[in-house]
């Protein structure tokens, strides 16, 4: 825990829950009658509500993006490196909104929430949510907060997909979309990894067809495996090599199958911790949302035609060692934007951390991000 809060921290923050009771129609055809969204905000909304920035989270993210919930917190929010006073998303200038998405498991309505119709958790009854659905719910949240137009919608990975979707679904409601370490669609390899993760979960005996809540148990083993395989795709060969190498936990081989290499025990530890804190049904839902995302699909696979609807400006960033969503995937997006005559800036950041690099403040990443957001702030008079 911090003895005192760092000067560039947003400090102690308190999440707030917003209840919506107008039914929301989802891409799958189902409706969600009422729902809650848990939200954190940092900084002050200015008089003309022009300085609002929306943060969209990735697969296992949530509303707690920056600051601390209490002085006892061991770690700050998941994107504290980029959000705070003087940081790229400068809370002295911007009003930052960060929410837990629909279907999540950190307070917003999701599979582990009670279904009002039955009084029991939704479980597998919870509808599959798409990136478009999230954007729709975020727009309703913006209405509630009095934000007509975002200065920027910002996200990494799955969050970047939401930023892109915003530009297509609500072109008049954002000035900038910042799409980091993302992709316009998953590749077969990406989907394959998601499928392994889902199989790990659904084949766990404790999964009970998604009704594990009723059995007072959790598919820990499955979720742990899902996280382990996912985690590998977030790192690079080089960063794993640097962190663990072939280091053993003890001095010699034991000629058995327990966790002997450091990397094995690290993955097990990460997986176990995750399996205690994350809902398995939410994990299934999030990976499916990733699989389905493909804005070009409705336009005959032509991404530039899909992007034609956008009117905002784009910043696209990729990382050299990201093999989950490679720089080539970002360049596909950029090229579609160029073809569609959109205003777009692009940089490939040289960083060794693989996909996770979007969470790590390497100097060039910070410079580029800060420079762009500084201009956004000036543009909206913040």
């Amino acid at each position: 825990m911090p003895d005192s809060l760092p000067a560039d921290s947003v400090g102690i923050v308190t999440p707030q829950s917003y209840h919506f009771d107008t039914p929301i129609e989802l891409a799958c055809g189902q409706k969600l009658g009422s729902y809650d969204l848990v939200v954190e905000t940092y900084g002050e909304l200015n008089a003309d509500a022009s300085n609002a920035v929306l943060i969209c989270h990735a697969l296992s993210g949530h509303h707690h993006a920056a600051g601390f919930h209490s002085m006892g917190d061991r770690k700050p929010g998941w994107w504290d490196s980029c959000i705070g006073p003087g940081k790229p998303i400068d809370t002295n200038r911007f009003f930052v909104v960060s929410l837990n998405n629909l279907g999540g498991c950190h307070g917003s309505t999701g599979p582990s929430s009670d279904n009002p119709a039955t009084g029991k958790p939704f479980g597998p009854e919870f509808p599959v949510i798409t990136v478009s659905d999230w954007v729709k719910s975020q727009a309703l949240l913006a209405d509630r907060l009095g934000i007509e137009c975002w200065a920027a919608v910002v996200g990494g990975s799955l969050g970047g997909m939401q930023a892109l979707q915003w530009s297509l679904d609500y072109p008049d409601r954002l000035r900038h979309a910042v799409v980091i370490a993302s992709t316009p669609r998953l590749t077969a390899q990406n989907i394959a990894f998601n499928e392994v993760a889902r199989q790990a979960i659904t084949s766990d005996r404790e999964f009970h067809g998604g009704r594990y809540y009723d059995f007072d148990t959790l598919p820990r083993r499955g979720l742990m495996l899902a996280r382990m395989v996912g985690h590998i795709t977030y790192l690079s060969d080089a960063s794993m090599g640097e962190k663990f190498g072939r280091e053993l936990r003890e001095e010699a081989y034991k000629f058995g199958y327990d966790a002997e290499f450091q990397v094995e025990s690290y993955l097990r530890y990460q997986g176990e911790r995750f399996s205690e804190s994350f809902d398995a049904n939410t994990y299934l839902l999030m990976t499916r949302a990733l699989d389905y995302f493909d804005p070009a699909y409705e336009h005959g696979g032509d991404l530039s035609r899909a992007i034609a609807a956008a009117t905002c400006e784009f910043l696209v960033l990729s990382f050299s060692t990201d093999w989950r969503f490679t720089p080539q995937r970002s360049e596909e997006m950029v090229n579609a934007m160029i073809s569609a005559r959109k205003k777009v800036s692009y940089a490939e950041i040289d960083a060794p951390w693989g996909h996770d690099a979007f969470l790590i403040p390497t100097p060039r990443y910070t410079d580029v991000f800060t420079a762009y957001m500084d201009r956004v702030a000036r543009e909206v008079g913040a």
Partner: protein
Amino acid sequence: MRPDLEIIQQWIKPGHHVLDLGCGDGTLLDYLQRERRATGFGLEINPDHITTCMNRGVAVIEQNLDTQGLDNFDDGMFDVVLMTQALQAVRRPDKVLDEMLRLGREGIVTFPNFAHWRLRWGLALSGRMPESEALPYKWYNTPNIRLCTFKDFEALCRQKGIRIKSRRVVDGQHQNSWSARLWPNLLGEIAIYRITRENEQ
């Protein structure tokens, strides 16, 4: 404003869609956006320049002409493709010229003249590779790997069926001088060419 940019901006019409190859810190595009309501992109590889462009609101794409080419841009999508003081630094200037006129109806190119009298004099006198204000590097670390003279460039244009719409020859400070006009390949330091395909107007 830099005098060469002053000359170039006169050739950009309001609302033109422009591509600037090697856009540097975005000074020219920034000016064209504000004063000419031009739109478009800059291509750059220098990280500091890219950051500056982003900060001033110039759309900049990190892309290396030598290794990545320009395949990601569609035919005829720009009114003008610019390349200031970078032609001599690419691996295949001839191919870049082709690409410029594939993407744009018109190209604007500036480069230093290797036949300027001071460079000729320096080489003749000292027997060493010349250095100047426009070419301040050593032979082993210079980014300028494809130096040419105005005559060389014009010969290449003829060979490729590229029409030179206009040429301005200036000195090292990009000032017009009577001497450079009189005997450009000997007395001019930098040329600004406006080029197009033979069949274009």
